C-alpha cells in the first residue's frame, strides 16, 4: 500500500450551481432558476436533519413550515442544548444602522479579506445579503437583542473590521439566537411537522443508488440501532474542533456525522483550516477537560500586553506602564487589539515563545481592563461584560476587575468541513451540509460574529430555497427497502464497529487515546505547522490507531446507556480525520489565515500566501482507512475582491 501522504490528484471540482453575472444578482437568479415543489406535494417528502444548533434548528423549523416532513436528531437530551448556545459575542449584519459606512458590499469584502482569500465569492456575497434578513427574523421571534434607550437595536464592533455591525445579547448572543430557533422548532414539533429524536446519534449515512437516502442512528438510552429513511439528508452537526481533545467545543461535539458521510463519498474540504481563538482561559493542569472562551468582544475595551522583559514574574500591578509591551497596539496601530483572530493568536504565541508569557508555565498574556474601568466606570464595564467577568472569576478564582485577565489561544472553530456547492449540496446527491459542518464561507479564517450569521443564513434562508430544487428533480415515488444491500450493509458495519470496540478488552480508557491524539495535533497541526512536524504526526497517527484497537477498554454493553462507548466510537473517527487534517496542512505549503506554515512567512513574520500555487479549495475524496486520499481542487476566482497581502497595520 502506498503511504498516506502520497495522495493523488483527481478531476477538479467546480461549483456548478452558482450563476454567473454580477455577484449581487446571483442569489436572486439562483432562487428563480431553482425548481419548486408544489405545496401539496411537500408533505410527501421527508427530510432528515442531523443536529439542532443554529443551522439545524433553523433549517428544521423552516422546512417544516414549508410543509416538508422533517425527522430531526440530536445527541443531547434536548434540542435547546446544541453548542451554538455557547457563542457569546454577537452576530454580524450589514444593516448600517450606525451610518458608519457599512454596506452589504463591505461585509462581503471584509469576510473575503478576513478569510485570507480562500473562500468562494458568490457564497460570501449571499451571506452578506442575507445577514440583514436574519436580524429581522430574530427580532420577530422575540430574540432580546441589546437595545439603546430609544428602543432601537444596539451594535458593537468586532475583530478585523472598522464598522460597528455586530448585534448582541449581552455575552449570550448564541444562547438567545439558538433559543429563537429552538422555539420555532418546538412550534413545528407541536404541530406534528417535525419528528424529533433526542439522545440519538447518527453513526452512518445510507446511500442508495448514488443518492443519500437515510441514516443509521443509535438511541443513546437503549443502545438500539435504527435506520431512518428520507428523500434528502441535511447534516448540521457542527465542526470537528474536538479532534484536538482540548478545545472550546462542548464535550460531546464530534465529527462522526461528517466523517461517516465523507467515507460514503462526500468530499471534505480544507480540513486544516482550524481557528485558534486568541482569548481563552489558560489551562491549569493535566486534568483539564475543556477550555473556556472569553468573548472576542472583550478586545473592544481590554488591552492586551505582556512585560517587555523576558521572565518578568512581578505581579501585573507592579509592572510600570513603560515596562509593558502592548504588542498588538504597537505592531498593528490601525486595528490595535481588534486584529483578526488568527493574527492575535499567533502574536500571543510568539510573545510566549519569546519567554514573555505570564502565569503558570508562561502560557498566557494579559487582557487588561484597568483603562476601560477608569474611562467608563465599573458599572458600564459590568453592564457590557459582567457575565464574562463572573465566569472568569469562577474558573480562575481571580477578580478581573482588580487583576488583568490571563488569556491564551485555544481551538475554537473549524472553517473546513464537507465540500458543498452553491446550493449547499455535497458531492453525494441529496446530502446537504450547513453551518459549521460545511466549508464554504469563511475561507482560511472566520471573522468574529460570523459563525452565527452563517449558521442562521444557511438554515433559515439558503437551504430551504435550494433543497426544493433537488427534491423537485427527484419526485417522491420510491420507498427505500430495508432489505436493500446498501441499508443492511450500513447497519451491519455499524454494529460490527460497536461490537469490536466492546471486544478489545485492553488496558487504556477511551479518553487516554483522545488526549494523546489531541496533544499530537496541537503540537504539530496547531498554531504553527512545519513540513517535518506534519510528517511526524502522519507517522504517529496510524500507530495510535493501531494501539487504540489493541489496548482500548470500553466497559459495559452496547444495549444500554453507555457514555464510554459513545466516546470510543467518536475517537475512531477522530483518528482518521486527524490524518486527513495533517495531510491537508502538509500539502498546502503556504500560510493563509489560521493555517500558518512556518516555512511560508513574510520578513515580519506574517502569513505569506502563495496564490499562484494554492488559490483553491482542497476537496479530499476518501479511499480507505489509512490509504492515500484523492485531491480535487476547486479553483477560486476573485472578480470583486482582489487578493492582496492582508494588512491590519
Amino acid at each position: 500500500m502506498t503511504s498516506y501522504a502520497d495522495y493523488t490528484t483527481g478531476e477538479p471540482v467546480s461549483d456548478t450551481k452558482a450563476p454567473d453575472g454580477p455577484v449581487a444578482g446571483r442569489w436572486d437568479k439562483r432562487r428563480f432558476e431553482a425548481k419548486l415543489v408544489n405545496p401539496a406535494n411537500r408533505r410527501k417528502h421527508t427530510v432528515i436533519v442531523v443536529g439542532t444548533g443554529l443551522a439545524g434548528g433553523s433549517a428544521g423549523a423552516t422546512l417544516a413550515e414549508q410543509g416538508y416532513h422533517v425527522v430531526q436528531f440530536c445527541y443531547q437530551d434536548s434540542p435547546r442544548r446544541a453548542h451554538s448556545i455557547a457563542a457569546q459575542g454577537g452576530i454580524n449584519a450589514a444593516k448600517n444602522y450606525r451610518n458608519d459606512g457599512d454596506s452589504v458590499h463591505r461585509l462581503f469584502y471584509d469576510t473575503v479579506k478576513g478569510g485570507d482569500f480562500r473562500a468562494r465569492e458568490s457564497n460570501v456575497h449571499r451571506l452578506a445579503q442575507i445577514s440583514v434578513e436574519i436580524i429581522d427574523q430574530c427580532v420577530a421571534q422575540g430574540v432580546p437583542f441589546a437595545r439603546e434607550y430609544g428602543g432601537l437595536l444596539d451594535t458593537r464592533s468586532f475583530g478585523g473590521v472598522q464598522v460597528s455591525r455586530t448585534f448582541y445579547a449581552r455575552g449570550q448572543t448564541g444562547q438567545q439566537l439558538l433559543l429563537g430557533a429552538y422555539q420555532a422548532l418546538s412550534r413545528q414539533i407541536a404541530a406534528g411537522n417535525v419528528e424529533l429524536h433526542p439522545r440519538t446519534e447518527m453513526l452512518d449515512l445510507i446511500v442508495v443508488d448514488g443518492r443519500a437516502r437515510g441514516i443509521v442512528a443509535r438511541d443513546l438510552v437503549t443502545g438500539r440501532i435504527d435506520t431512518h429513511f428520507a428523500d434528502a439528508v441535511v447534516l448540521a452537526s457542527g465542526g470537528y474542533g474536538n479532534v484536538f481533545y482540548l478545545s472550546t467545543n462542548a464535550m460531546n461535539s464530534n465529527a462522526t456525522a461528517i466523517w461517516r458521510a465523507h467515507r460514503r463519498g462526500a468530499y471534505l474540504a480544507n480540513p486544516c483550516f482550524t481557528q485558534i481563538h486568541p482569548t481563552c482561559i489558560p489551562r491549569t493542569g493535566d486534568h483539564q477537560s475543556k477550555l473556556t472562551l472569553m468573548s472576542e468582544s472583550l478586545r473592544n475595551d481590554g488591552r492586551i500586553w505582556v512585560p517587555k522583559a523576558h521572565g518578568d514574574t512581578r505581579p501585573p500591578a507592579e509592572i510600570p506602564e513603560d515596562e509593558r509591551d502592548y504588542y498588538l497596539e504597537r505592531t498593528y496601530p490601525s486595528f490595535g487589539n481588534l486584529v483578526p483572530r488568527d493574527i492575535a493568536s499567533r502574536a500571543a504565541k510568539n510573545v510566549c515563545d519569546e519567554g514573555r508569557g505570564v502565569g503558570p508555565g508562561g502560557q498566557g498574556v494579559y487582557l487588561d481592563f484597568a483603562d476601560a474601568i477608569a474611562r467608563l466606570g465599573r458599572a458600564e464595564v459590568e453592564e457590557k461584560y459582567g457575565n464574562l467577568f463572573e465566569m472568569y472569576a469562577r474558573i480562575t478564582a481571580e477578580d478581573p476587575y482588580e487583576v488583568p485577565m490571563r488569556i491564551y489561544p485555544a481551538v475554537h472553530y473549524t472553517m473546513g468541513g464537507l465540500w458543498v456547492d452553491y446550493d449547499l449540496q455535497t458531492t453525494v446527491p441529496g446530502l446537504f451540509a450547513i453551518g459549521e459542518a460545511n466549508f464554504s464561507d469563511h475561507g482560511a479564517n472566520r471573522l468574529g460574529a460570523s459563525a452565527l450569521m452563517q449558521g442562521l443564513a444557511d438554515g433559515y434562508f439558503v437551504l430551504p430555497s435550494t433543497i426544493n430544487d433537488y427534491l423537485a428533480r427527484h419526485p417522491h415515488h420510491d420507498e427505500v427497502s430495508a432489505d436493500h444491500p446498501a441499508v443492511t450493509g450500513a447497519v451491519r458495519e455499524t454494529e460490527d464497529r460497536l461490537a469490536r470496540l466492546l471486544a478489545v478488552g485492553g488496558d487504556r480508557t477511551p479518553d487516554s487515546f483522545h488526549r494523546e491524539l489531541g496533544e499530537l495535533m496541537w503540537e504539530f497541526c496547531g498554531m504553527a505547522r512545519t513540513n517535518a512536524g506534519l510528517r511526524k504526526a502522519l507517522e504517529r497517527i496510524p500507530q495510535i490507531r493501531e494501539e487504540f484497537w489493541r489496548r482500548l477498554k470500553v466497559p459495559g454493553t452496547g444495549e444500554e446507556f453507555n457514555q464510554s462507548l459513545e466516546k470510543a466510537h467518536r475517537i475512531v473517527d477522530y483518528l482518521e480525520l486527524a490524518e486527513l487534517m495533517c495531510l491537508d496542512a502538509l500539502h498546502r505549503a503556504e500560510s493563509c489565515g489560521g493555517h500558518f506554515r512556518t516555512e511560508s512567512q513574510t520578513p515580519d513574520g506574517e502569513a505569506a500566501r502563495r496564490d499562484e500555487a494554492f488559490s483553491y479549495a482542497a476537496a479530499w475524496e476518501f479511499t480507505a482507512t489509512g490509504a492515500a486520499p484523492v485531491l480535487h481542487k476547486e479553483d477560486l476566482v476573485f472578480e470583486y475582491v482582489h487578493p492582496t497581502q492582508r494588512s491590519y497595520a
Partner: protein
Amino acid sequence: MRLTLRVWRQRNAAADGALSTYEIDGISPDMSFLEMLDTLNEELILSGDDPVAFDHDCREGICGACSLVINGAAHGPKGVSPARADSRAWGSTTTCQLHMRSFRDGDTIDIEPWRAAAFPVVKDLVVDRSAFDRIIQAGGYITAPTGAAPEAHATPVPKPDADSAFEHAECIGCGACVAACPNGAAMLFTSAKVNHLNVLPQGAPERGTRVLDMVAQMDEEGFGGCTLAGECATVCPKGIPLFSITAMNREFLRAARKGR
C-alpha cells in the same frame, strides 16, 4: 485532596438505585467538579467497574445539561465571588462551573440526580427532562414563520422591557428549580419563558394563549404546585427572580378572565 464520594447508582429507569461509596485521591482544587468525576470514571473503567453516567456538555455554564444534587443542593454549594467587592456569595452556579476549591480535603460528598416525579432517572445521575421541552412546545414561542419578518427597527422596544425580556430569556432549562422545590414545581422555568415573550410587543398577540397552554402542559407533566417556597430562585444559576412567578400568575389570571 482526598475525598469520599457517595454516588447514586441506578442501572436504568426500571431498576432500584442506591448510594455507592468511592474513595478518591489526588484531586486538585483547580479541577472542576465534573473533572473530579472524570478522574473517578477513569479509575472505575480501569478497575473494571461501570463508570458513573452524568449529563454534561458545554462545561461553561450555558447549555444546561449538567444536573447534580451535591450535598443536598441542586448544583452544589454556593461559591464566594472574588469578582464582587464585598465578597458576598454570588448565588448558585451550574455544576460544571463548580470547582473543587469549594470543598476541603477529607470531605465526604453526596452526589445524586435531580429528584422530581416529572424527571425520571435514565441512569445513575442522568434524568429525563423532556417535560420541559413539551412545556415550550405548548406555547413558548412567537409564531413568526421564516421570511415574514418586518424590518427590525419597525418595532422599537423600550430598553427596560428589552432588559426584562433578556433577564428571563437567560434561563438555561437545567431543571435545578424543580430539583430544589419541595413540591417539584416547574413554575420558575415556565414563568421565565412566559415573561420573556409576554413582555415584548412581538409576543403580545399570543400573550394569553401562551400562558394558559404552557401552564396546562406544566400541570399535565406532573410537576407539583407552587407554594412560593422560593428555593427555585435561590439555586437558579442564571438568577431568574422569584417575582417571575408572581408575574406569570398575573398573566394567567388576566388570560383566564378574558378566556384567552
